[in-house]
């Protein structure tokens, strides 16, 4: 009887692993295809798409596609631009949106609920609908820089960063998380005479690792994948991000091998960022699930 039970357990475990492996393959195979293809000549890459060879390191493998990618486009510059814009936006966003969330949860002020509703309502407004009005706005805004006062933000890093710092989703994430923090902690800090900013900095933020990681990852992905906005506000190559740079490879005859090499290169920062924050991210998802 115990043997049968053990067999059943093993069978269930085997089936479970099989299902998990299949699901993992669905996500891993495209990445595997991308990496393997980045080492193959374009014509061989295209031929291999009809067989399992597409996922295997077989055929004429070389680093030619990587060399070609760097010759075709300033890959390093594009990656730097994207990381700079993304990193700056993520940092500023975490500060501004967490402050906003803190204010919505812990401070009492007139119109708070209405304002929160308005911010949440921005969820349903697709960016494409405000892209043109926003373009017209930023093209006429003043800027006081080292060269003095100038007009128009086009062709700059700031035009890619500032409009994206605050957003409804990130504020919402902080609001939801802050609501779950024990109220007694805040009250105790108030009784001890802490200012609101001290409570934010010394009590709330140290407890908010999971939501900070979640917000950072989501914002990172949104910013790193930016395409439409930089396309319309940046005309100079020196400010172009990776996704606009991808278009360099789509000529009349797309250089598929170089495209795969370029995609592999620009995927590295995303994977690295996720791997660094994944524990906190999973903790955040798990805690959200527990709260229901």
């Amino acid at each position: 009887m115990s043997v049968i039970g053990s067999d059943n357990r093993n069978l269930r475990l085997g089936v479970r692993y099989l299902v998990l492996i299949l699901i993992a393959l669905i996500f891993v195979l495209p990445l595997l295809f991308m990496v393997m293809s980045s080492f193959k000549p374009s014509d061989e890459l295209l031929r291999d798409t009809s067989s399992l060879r597409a996922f295997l390191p077989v055929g004429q493998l070389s680093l030619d596609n990587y060399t070609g990618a760097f010759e075709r486009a300033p890959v390093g510059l594009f990656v730097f631009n994207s990381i700079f814009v993304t990193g700056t936006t993520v940092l500023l966003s975490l500060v501004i949106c967490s402050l906003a969330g803190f204010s919505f949860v812990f401070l009492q002020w007139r119109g708070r609920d209405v304002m929160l509703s308005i911010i949440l309502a921005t969820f349903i407004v697709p960016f494409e609908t405000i892209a043109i009005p926003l373009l017209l706005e930023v093209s006429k805004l003043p800027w006081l820089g080292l060269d003095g006062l100038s007009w128009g933000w086009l062709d700059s890093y700031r035009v890619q960063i500032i409009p994206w710092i605050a957003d409804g989703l990130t504020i919402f994430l902080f609001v939801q998380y802050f609501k779950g923090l024990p109220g007694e902690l805040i009250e105790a800090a108030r009784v001890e005479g802490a200012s609101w900013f001290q409570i934010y900095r010394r009590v709330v933020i140290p407890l908010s690792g999971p939501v900070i990681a979640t917000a950072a990852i989501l914002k990172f992905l949104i910013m790193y994948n930016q395409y439409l906005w930089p396309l319309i506000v940046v005309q100079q190559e020196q400010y172009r991000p990776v996704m606009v740079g991808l278009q360099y490879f789509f000529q009349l005859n797309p250089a598929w091998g170089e495209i795969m090499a370029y995609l592999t290169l620009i995927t590295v920062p995303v994977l690295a960022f996720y791997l660094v924050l994944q524990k906190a991210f999973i903790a955040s998802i798990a805690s959200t699930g527990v709260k229901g």
Partner: protein
Amino acid sequence: MKLLNVTAGAVIAATGFCSAAFATTDLTMWYHGAGNKVESKIVHQIIDDFNKSQSDYKVALQSFPQNSYNDSVTAAALAGNLPDILDMDGPIMPNWAWSGYLQPLPIPEDHFKDFLPGTKGVYDGKLYSIGLWDAAVALYARKSTMKELGLRTPTLDKPWTKDEFMSALEAAKKSGKFDYAIDLGMSDKGEWYPYAFLPFLQSFGGGLVNRKTYDTAEGVLNGDAAVAWGNWWQSLFTDKLAPGTSQDPAAHETGFIDGKYAFSWNGNWNAVKTMDKVDDVEFLPAPDFGNGSKIGGASWQFGISASSKAPEGAAEFIKFATQDKYLAEFSDALGLIPATKSAAQMTKNYKSGGPLAVFYGLSEAQAEKRPVTPGYVVDSKVFQKAAADIADGADVIDTLDSATDQINADIKRNDGYKKN
């Protein structure tokens, strides 16, 4: 006195230098070739040559990726940030001119009298743009296949009729040697559809819009000729003569070279690559479906933005760039059809007897521009969908009626695209 003279001399010299410095007008130029190493090199060379050839103007280049170029220009126009000189794909020129992005070239049209018709961007009776090259489509075939199937080789003077063309496809299918008789490039969604397939409709006697008035598609896109085209077009796919819209892009890239397709309806930009891999490839003219052999014309062209403060300088650059030596250089490097016959004679591929000389003849004799109307940007999308739907088995008459309605509605919505 001596000090005074020296001082005066210095002032005069300084003023002279200043005025010399002020005399140079900076011009900005946008180009669609970012990522194309060969093309970028030539464009930079032309600009360097121009800047060195005179001191009145200095051109600075900004390159954009082709796929996103139009969106960048439209956004810049909205933000009032257009450059002095910009290039554009031929069929979009009327829309940009109508929208006020462009000004007519301040160059007499006679200056370009030797240029291929497809390279001249004329809208509302004015020349707005000029191209350094044109592109052409031909029927790729192997001489060995033609011989094996016992087919007559069509010429510009005597192209295949519809019956001959269909017999050739049927013969290829019956031979059992090919996956499909012809590759039309159905996987290549986008502007390829109107560029490559609209000429078939025109050869049947139909069209996208009334070319005399440009105020309706009624009777043109849904008339008897258009319906005949639609039925023929659909038969190519129902009879399994050509792969349909689900064609694998990889098969389109290598299918003809690998011998999977007997014929390929393809552009001259793929000709050099194909010649390298298929020894006996030949390029045949489009079949005549009743109203003459036709192929699409007009490729990338230079124009001047309406906001340019120095159109005369921009015009000087365009005249400089359209010299035969540059047309030939572009052609040799990219396989494009040079805009003039004299430039063609300077190239390795398009000179008399050259391996691609046939394309020059095709462009000269058969090229027909896509409708020269601001509404083409919409018409093009409507045609793309209609051609794809019919290929997928949609009812021909309903599809063409619906496409006609959409184009007419767009014309009405824009008040007939009257000149502002």
